[in-house]
């Protein structure tokens, strides 16, 4: 395992968002974090494939309930296993890889003892494995988004704690932290607090009855909205200026949106329980916060798009294409999410697949695309060579983008169709199901696209990890209309 002494690069100039990438000490930092970052990326991609296969089976079972009717593959176990592998396996592992690399680079140093972080990665992945296997074997909790048993969270948390220790040692408090650092550090801090607090409150039986569901909803919502989404926003704030060479369009607005984001996203947690046996004020608070959340998200999206505007490399850079696509989808998704939180719409679409569709749009269309873009950006710096094939990158982009939007769109349409009938007592329940099921085939087909896209990326990544690629120096660019 690489053990580097405390390595220092030149400190970040205050207020500067763009750094030259040639400083030799950057390559020393990259070499120090390479094992742990590549390890996290590698395992994240394994989870991505596992989750997509489980997700494809789940999708098939929606219209073929009798398919592969084994107890460990029943819909009620497959769905949370696929979701857990996606959120805690793919998204969280990739986010940790991005976090470790960004914090080291932005702090201008890599603290020794990356082995600690690597061991953390083993523990985290072990925890996810325990969670997925336990869920399939029927040892699960009835909490949406927090189905993995407590044991898996204990192991995951131990791993995360080790990673956090390394991050804390490396993190250098800057006079004026970049927006990127603020989002990433905010995400790490929130995950640490919420995983610990949420699981402790539930496991210690400090809360009972419906409040247990409220705590679970708060914890699971925090994992997506206050750990994964902030980290990918932070990655976007890092990559967009670096690739385009433009300074961030508005630093002060970016910071203001950061604070507004963390304040409002912290209050949306019970939208998944709205209309249920919780106080009405709590439903209303969550709905209002979901509406308000549109402001910092659209603001950040605008800030990032305006930063990239007019850039000549924007069309040709693979990382930028993925990141900007993901960022734009995040903007759209925040509007759909807010619309779904309105009481009048929630009453009809709640308990349909609308919610699953919006989540799919966020995690596959926005988060995953930004994570892919980040990996496209980071890996050449760790491997010392460039991506092998621009056609493979184009193929990945098209399949992943279409697959994500098509799958999410089908679920959202299914939810709207089923919801309109569900809220109308003249429709029988079997009519509700029939209306919703018209979109199931489209949803299933989207998984074929996703498997092709994710599979091709995993292959490309493996080649990169063993340093098979184009010679360093000339980045692999995508063909553009101007004839690259």
């Amino acid at each position: 395992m690489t053990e580097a002494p405390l390595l220092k690069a030149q400190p970040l100039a205050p207020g500067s968002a763009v750094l030259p990438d040639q400083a030799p000490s950057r390559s020393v930092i990259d070499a120090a974090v390479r094992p742990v970052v590549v390890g996290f990326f590698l395992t994240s991609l394994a989870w991505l494939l596992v989750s997509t296969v489980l997700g494809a089976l789940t999708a098939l079972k929606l219209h073929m309930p009798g398919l592969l009717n084994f107890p460990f593959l029943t819909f009620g176990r497959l769905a949370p296993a696929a979701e857990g592998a996606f959120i805690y396996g793919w998204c969280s592992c990739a986010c940790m890889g991005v976090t470790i690399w960004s914090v080291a680079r932005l702090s201008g140093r890599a603290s020794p003892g990356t082995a600690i972080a690597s061991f953390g990665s083993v523990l985290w992945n072990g925890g996810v494995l325990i969670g997925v296997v336990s869920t399939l074997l029927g040892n699960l909790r009835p909490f949406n988004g927090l189905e993995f048993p407590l044991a898996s969270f204990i192991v995951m948390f131990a791993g995360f704690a080790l990673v956090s220790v390394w991050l804390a040692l490396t993190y250098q408090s800057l006079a004026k932290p970049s927006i990127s650092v603020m989002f990433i550090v905010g995400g790490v801090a929130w995950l640490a607090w919420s995983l610990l607090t949420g699981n402790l409150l539930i496991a210690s039986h400090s809360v009972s009855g419906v409040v247990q569901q409220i705590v679970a909803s708060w914890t699971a919502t925090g994992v997506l909205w206050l750990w994964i989404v902030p980290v990918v926003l932070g990655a976007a704030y890092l990559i967009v200026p670096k690739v385009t060479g433009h300074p961030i369009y508005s630093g002060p607005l970016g910071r203001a949106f950061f604070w507004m984001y963390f304040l409002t996203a912290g209050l949306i947690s019970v939208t998944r329980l709205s209309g249920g046996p919780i106080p009405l004020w709590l439903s209303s608070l969550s709905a209002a916060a979901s509406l308000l959340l549109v402001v910092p998200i659209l603001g950040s999206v605008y800030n990032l798009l305006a930063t990239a505007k007019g850039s000549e490399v924007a069309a040709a850079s693979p990382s930028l294409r993925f990141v900007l696509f993901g960022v734009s989808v995040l903007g759209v998704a925040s509007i759909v999410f807010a619309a779904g939180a309105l009481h009048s719409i929630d009453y009809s679409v709640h308990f349909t697949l609308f919610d699953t569709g919006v989540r799919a749009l966020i995690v596959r269309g926005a988060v995953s695309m930004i994570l892919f873009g980040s990996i496209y950006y980071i890996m050449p710096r760790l491997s010392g060579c460039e991506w092998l094939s621009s056609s493979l990158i184009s193929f990945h982009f098209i399949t992943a983008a279409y697959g994500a939007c098509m799958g999410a769109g089908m679920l959202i349409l299914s939810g709207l169709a089923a919801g309109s009938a569900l809220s109308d007592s003249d429709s029988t329940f079997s009519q509700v199901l029939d209306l919703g099921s018209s979109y199931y085939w489209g949803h299933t087909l989207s998984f074929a696209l996703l498997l092709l896209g994710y599979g091709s990326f995993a292959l490309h990544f493996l080649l990169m990890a063993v340093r098979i690629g184009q010679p360093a120096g000339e980045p692999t660019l995508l063909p553009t209309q101007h004839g690259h």
Partner: protein
Amino acid sequence: MSRSGFLFPGLLACFAVSIGATVLLPHMQLGTLTPSFKEEEGQISEVYPVASVSTATNGRDVYISQGCQACHSQVIRGTETADVDRGWGARRTVARDYIFDAPPVLGAARIGPDLTNVGSSKWRNEPEGDPVRPEKRDAAWQYLHLYHPKAVIHSSNMPAYTDLFAKHKISGSPSPDALKLPANLAPEPGYEIVPTADAKALVVYLSSLDRSHPLKEAGVVAAAAPTKK
């Protein structure tokens, strides 16, 4: 304090607002709920809810373990929705309904019907008078439904939970628990299909589900109780 010095205190403040407003306040409001009861001349009656018997609790574990909550909710919403009109319950459910559930199995989606009150004889998933409506959903019906859903609800999209049942060779007289299966599902002569302990516990749990007891905060007051105008 430098600008970076605001980052962690600021994040901590956001965290405090989040957990304070959406976890601690609801806990203060709902955490102390106790069963409702009627008191007349020192006699306490109509205590609701009551803790379940252990078989039902075991059945609840089977329900969770099989992942039933992925497709079945246990939440009745107010009259803004069609939940009550569908026959799933007489009133909306409130936090007091779930005080003995650790945790309540509220469910994620309705790919199947809501089961909040499935143990009540009044529960229905079909319009009144619909010919497809089963005459009664007793234990025998539940077993058959779990073993082969389409045998009782032709349009059912529920998978068959055959692993909750066992095929036994009939020795002596047939088991009283044996499923009365239609000819196309029946095992070969000399054999019978019987529910396992898990299936029995699950059916006890399902039959115990009835949250229709009147509660003031749910907008329904017991008919016998005096109401103030």
